[in-house]
């Protein structure tokens, strides 16, 4: 579904991603693991058209989307739940969800129905629909960020550190939700520092260090590996 070929990302003279190859098949959950600053987020941001790609190709369902505008990529069915949730703090919950459905006229027409669907999935959001998103708890904001992305009815969902800073029971809820929507056919690529939880839901995983993939395999294989030394880039030399 999503293929990255020899992807490189640089911010000025700083190379964040150096030739990453990655494929996510339809219906899969794939986890991208690695330490802070390894380049995981840059990979997602580049795929989404938010980070400068210096080399390589990004294809979504066979269509080359390298360096396309994020708005165009959303319309092609892929969307990102950004790191740190990034809900619009001074928009209400309902307005945040409305923004999530802004991409195309047909999505806009379904805004009300899709909001109701999100409220059923996340009842906490229903209670707070008229509140400013900034007044929600961290967990509720993460639910809102995911619900907002789901409003675009994506076929492929990218998530950047969805567990960051959240209580364990909230993390469980969020990952249960991801497992459930994956069963309904949503393809997911998830960046996580919390390897345990990510490997639990993902079928396959890749470990990234210093902008390169240093380990790739089924979740069981990656779980058996010495993640600590991989995180430090030990695998790069191997």
């Amino acid at each position, binding site marked *: 579904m999503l293929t990255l070929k020899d992807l490189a990302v640089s911010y000025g003279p700083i190379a964040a991603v150096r030739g990453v190859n990655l494929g996510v098949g339809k219906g899969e959950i794939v986890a991208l693991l690695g330490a802070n600053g390894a380049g995981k987020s840059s990979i997602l941001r580049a795929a*989404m058209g*938010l980070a400068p790609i210096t080399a390589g190709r990004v294809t979504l369902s066979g269509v080359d989307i390298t360096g396309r*505008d*994020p*708005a165009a990529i*959303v*319309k092609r069915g892929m*969307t*990102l739940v*950004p790191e*740190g949730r*990034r*809900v*619009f*703090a*001074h*928009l209400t919950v309902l*307005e945040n969800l*409305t*923004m*999530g459905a*802004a*991409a*195309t006229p047909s*999505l*806009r027409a379904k805004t009300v129905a899709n909001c109701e669907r999100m409220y059923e999935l996340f009842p906490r959001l229903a209670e707070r629909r008229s509140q400013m998103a*900034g007044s929600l708890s961290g967990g509720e904001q993460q639910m809102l960020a995911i619900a*907002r992305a789901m409003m*675009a009815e994506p076929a492929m969902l990218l998530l950047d550190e969805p567990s960051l800073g959240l209580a364990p029971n909230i993390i469980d809820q969020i990952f249960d939700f991801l497992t459930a929507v994956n069963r309904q056919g949503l393809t997911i690529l998830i960046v996580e520092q919390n390897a345990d939880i990510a490997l639990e839901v993902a079928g396959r995983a890749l470990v990234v260090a210093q902008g390169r993939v240093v380990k790739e395999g089924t979740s069981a294989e990656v779980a058996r590996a010495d993640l600590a030394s991989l995180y430090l880039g030990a695998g790069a030399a191997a």
Partner: protein
Amino acid sequence: MTSEIIIQQLVNAVAVGGTYALLALGLAIVFSVMGLINFAHGELMTITGYGIFFSLAAGLPFPLALAAGIGLAIVAAVSMERIAFRPVRRASPTIMLLSSFAVSTILHILMQNLIATRPKAIAIPEALAGAVNFGTLQIGAIQLLSIIITAISLVGLTLFLNRTLLGISIRAAAEDFDVTRLMGVDANRVIATAFAASGALAAIAGILWIFQRGSVDPLMGFTPVLKAFIAVVLGGMGSLGGAVAGGFLLGFIEVMARAFLPDALQSYREAIVLTVVIGVLYRYPDGLIPRQVSVR
């Protein structure tokens, strides 16, 4: 009698402050969405003035001439964005600022050379010259109209920003531009709309300004927009509510200084007004209503 004077001056303050508020709001909308301080904002007022002048000269009735002036300012604002600011959108704030200086200067020179350096008179309908009596209280028709127009504009803009998807998108973009693009929203469309709104606000403020002075000249926009900048800083850079609050507060300080400072101090009025502004900023360094940006 004293209370009447005070009420009279309060009405003045609301009328003057409203004009500043509209101008400041136009600056703030553009700043909040793309981080550009548009020094050419005053030229939009001037363009409105010439739009009205030439429409009247062509024989259009007054209300239609006003509409033409507003339309012209909106077209000018959107064109400015398309021609001058879009190419430097990703550049540093300094470069964007310099671009807006350039636009402002080019428009000055064009208007001075192609139209006139001297003011062109715009005849204001007689109905606006009079005053309206509320009991013993007498309020100028122009002031009353200014207040009504300001109120309608602010309510209209609030409805637009809260009830329409494009308006909500502008608020979202003001908070987090990248994530707004992630929603599949066309960035160009949001920015163009913000400019169109700022053009309309500048035009309405320009009309109120022209009602007061009855003429248009190439430098007409300079002073009011300078005041609007002060209002924006006073209210909190990029905060829309702040721009309105800053505009009204500045108008209030100015009018009260003009009305109640002793004659001996009147020549220091501007300095005294700005001292009060500095005093307010000393107490509220981020402005009255600081910009609301989500924590990243």
